[in-house]
């Protein structure tokens, strides 16, 4: 879907699509050329893109792809679909806290370690943000806010451990 969305901007060669995909969405996992052409082939078969004439010149990438009306409407539909709001009420953090309490281990000790690990990851993302470009910064921020949400839960849970322990042991 990302490729189709990129193609909506203007007719493009597979190479341009791959380059822009890697720049915006790749994040250290560049898209293999084979996958680009396989995807474009599938989109063409389904009538979402048209393959232009083979252009003169050297190199394998002499075809331009153009999005169809059906392709545009597919992008439109996809962009209107909200992503499933996460998370679900089942988290390994919670399971660890409860099991620590049930077994008489230190849940606070576990939460301290988890906090330190979260903060370490936040430091890495902050460093990425300070050295990278706008795309890196936006993605890093997404990660940072999610980690921050976990940390707020960790703080609140740490403050409620006594009550939680009473309940678990009852």
């Amino acid at each position: 879907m990302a490729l189709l969305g990129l193609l909506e901007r203007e007719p493009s060669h597979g190479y341009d699509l791959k380059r822009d995909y890697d720049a915006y969405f790749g994040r250290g996992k560049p898209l293999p050329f084979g996958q680009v052409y396989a995807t474009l082939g599938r989109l063409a078969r389904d009538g979402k893109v048209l393959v232009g004439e083979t252009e003169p010149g050297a190199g394998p990438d002499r075809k331009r792809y153009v999005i169809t009306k059906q392709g545009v409407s597919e992008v439109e539909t996809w962009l209107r679909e909200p992503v499933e709001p996460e998370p679900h009420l089942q988290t390994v953090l919670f399971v660890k806290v409860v099991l620590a309490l049930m077994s008489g281990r230190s849940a606070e000790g576990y939460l301290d370690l988890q906090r330190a690990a979260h903060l370490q990851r936040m430091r890495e993302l902050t460093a990425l943000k300070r050295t990278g470009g706008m795309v890196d910064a936006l993605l890093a921020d997404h990660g940072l806010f999610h980690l921050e949400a976990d940390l707020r839960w960790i703080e609140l849970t740490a403050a409620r451990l006594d009550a939680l322990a009473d309940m678990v042991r009852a």
Partner: protein
Amino acid sequence: MNAETVRAHPDAPGALIEARDVGLSFGPTPALRGASVAVQAGEILAVMGPSGSGKSTLLHCLAGILTPDTGEILLAGRRLDTMRENARSALRRDRFGFVFQFGQLVGELSAVENVALPLLLSGTPRAEALARARSWFDRLDLDGTQTRRCGELSGGQAQRVALARALVARPEVLFADEPTGALDSLTGEHVMNLLVSCAREQGTTVILVTHEPRVAAYADREIIVRDGTVTSFAAAPLLP
């Protein structure tokens, strides 16, 4: 005395600034109970922990503003807590910088006069102090505010002016207590970026109190203050 001479002090092989087993009570309320922390020269340390746990009190002890009841504060290996008050205040003026959450700027003075204040207080000639102060406005994206009175600045502008004032005299140690507390996320991020870049450039050691993880993530490491003591995360077994 400049930063290099202090860091090369023969009695300070390790930490630049250190609290050893510090206790302090306000009347019957114990704010610190045996808090220990060692901060390396050039390090940026975040101090986190619940409200009322003793973070600000610890910061004030490390900065020589409060005197602990028990324990020791060491600066480059020298006792800070037993120094006479006038020696300590000279040291705060010449070697420390401070940024706090509110009410630190002199509202009646212009922004540039506020930034120049630490230089003026330590005897720099007025023209030179103002020139050095002015050089901060561009890098802090504060152009055009130089002559405004500080009472008229927005929260984010005031906080950047406060940061410039804290750093203008090139302190060895910057103490910051919730420096982004009153700011929105983007402005807070701007202030933190500047704080970290300036500190790294000047080799300033930073002790930063914050309850915001995204602010703490700018530091090299964090300590957690809880009930007046510093928690460390040695990989101890979870079973008692």
